[in-house]
């Protein structure tokens, strides 16, 4: 018997290792079994391994994401920076174009207010505001475009000046702040007459020939009277400021702040034809005059 057992001991061992677990399984399969202390101890042994792997993998991922994956970041950043700069330039250009559209729309609106007048639009291509010489703006329109000497130059805000010299394709505009410029105006509120004369600096004019007895206060708006034969009636010129009325003398003195900031102009309108009233035209040109 023992010899038999000894002879087949390995086979018996394997059979036992097969049958016992199967019996244990069928015995415990239908009821949940609790883990023994040995089970828990063995499982506890696996914890450091799992943690180590987790630490290694997460560390590797961190290294990858933090360093290796960023190896092209500089090139990407440079490319994006270039793109941002291009977009900034494009945006600036669009903003500039939008401002230009706004200005042109305003000019167009102004031109449409008086259908009898004819205008030629022009861009400022040169500025000469040196105090020693004339205060001139150069525009890109000339005789070829119908521009002539003494034509009024305006924008929606008011009077800019008049054409002083003209060539085929450009013209010089003597602005209202030049010392040689004198524009016949009236106070909009009281219709009191006076001339606005330039002082040689772009931000101020003075009031000439304003009679001391005339009703005039600081802040009064001055518009063209049309009596000088150069400017149409009713164009804004400026506002009265620093008004001084003396006890003696014929005239009162004042400064005028121009309606138009000539230093910021980009486009202007040259008035090529406008409604001239009979009272201001020389007799030779008055309607009904026969030569």
């Amino acid at each position: 018997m023992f010899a038999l057992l000894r002879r087949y001991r390995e086979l018996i061992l394997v059979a036992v290792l097969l049958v016992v677990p199967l019996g244990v399984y069928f015995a415990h399969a239908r009821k949940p079994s609790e883990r023994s202390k040995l089970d828990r101890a063995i499982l506890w042994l696996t914890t450091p391994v799992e943690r180590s792997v987790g630490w290694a993998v997460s560390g590797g991922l961190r290294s990858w994401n933090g360093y290796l994956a960023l190896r092209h970041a500089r090139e990407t950043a440079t490319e994006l920076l270039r793109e941002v700069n291009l977009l900034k330039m494009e945006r600036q250009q669009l903003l500039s174009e939008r401002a230009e559209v706004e200005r042109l729309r305003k000019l167009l609106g102004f031109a449409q207010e008086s259908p009898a007048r004819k205008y030629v639009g022009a861009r400022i291509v040169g500025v000469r505001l040196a105090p020693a010489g004339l205060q001139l703006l150069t525009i890109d329109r000339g005789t070829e475009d119908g521009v002539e000497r003494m034509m009024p130059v305006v924008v929606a805000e008011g009077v800019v000046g008049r054409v002083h010299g003209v060539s085929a394709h450009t013209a010089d505009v003597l602005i209202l702040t030049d010392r040689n410029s004198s524009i016949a105006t009236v106070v909009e509120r009281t219709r009191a007459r006076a001339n606005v004369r330039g002082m040689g600096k772009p931000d101020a004019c003075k009031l000439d020939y304003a009679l001391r007895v005339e009703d005039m206060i600081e802040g009064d708006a001055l518009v063209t009277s049309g009596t000088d034969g150069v400017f149409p009636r009713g164009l804004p010129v400026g506002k009265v400021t620093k008004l001084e009325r003396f006890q003696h003398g014929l005239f009162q003195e004042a400064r005028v702040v121009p309606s138009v900031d000539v230093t910021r102009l980009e486009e202007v309108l040259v008035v090529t034809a406008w409604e001239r009233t009979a009272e201001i035209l020389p007799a030779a040109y008055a309607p009904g005059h026969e030569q």
Partner: protein
Amino acid sequence: MKPLAHVLFALVLAALQSAILRWVGGGAFSVALLAACIVYLGLHGGNVDGSVGAAGIGYVLDLVTGSPKGLMTFLAVLLFVLARAVNAAVDVRSRGGFALLSGGGALVISLGALVLTRLTSAPESAPGIGLVPRMLLEAILTAAAAPLLYPGLRRVDRLFHREEHGLLR
């Protein structure tokens, strides 16, 4: 000692497997690396230390899979016997053969567990045939990964291999 070493190796392997699967795929698929250990024992182990080692690995499987006690132990010993039978019929020496057997072993364990669990579970909680594709995928992945384990298992084996110095000199 040799079966114990294999069981410890299996324990470390089970921990590695669960940790790696947590990061790779997040549980979308699984592998049965311990089945490859059992197949290795069936091919290269002795009857006694191999079967004991397989039972030990089965116990570890029982623990890590949370299956009822004895199920995986029985299946591990069964796989050991099957591997041994295959080895008796076909001399499996290449790593490809080892990989093929490991994949088959993983499938045997999965299908065996499925059948036995169906036998003992209530019908409403019994595992269904729908798990078979997942088991096939597990077997394929196990077959793919098994050759990587081969050097480690050989190293564990060599720890207990006695060289008789001077015989060839």
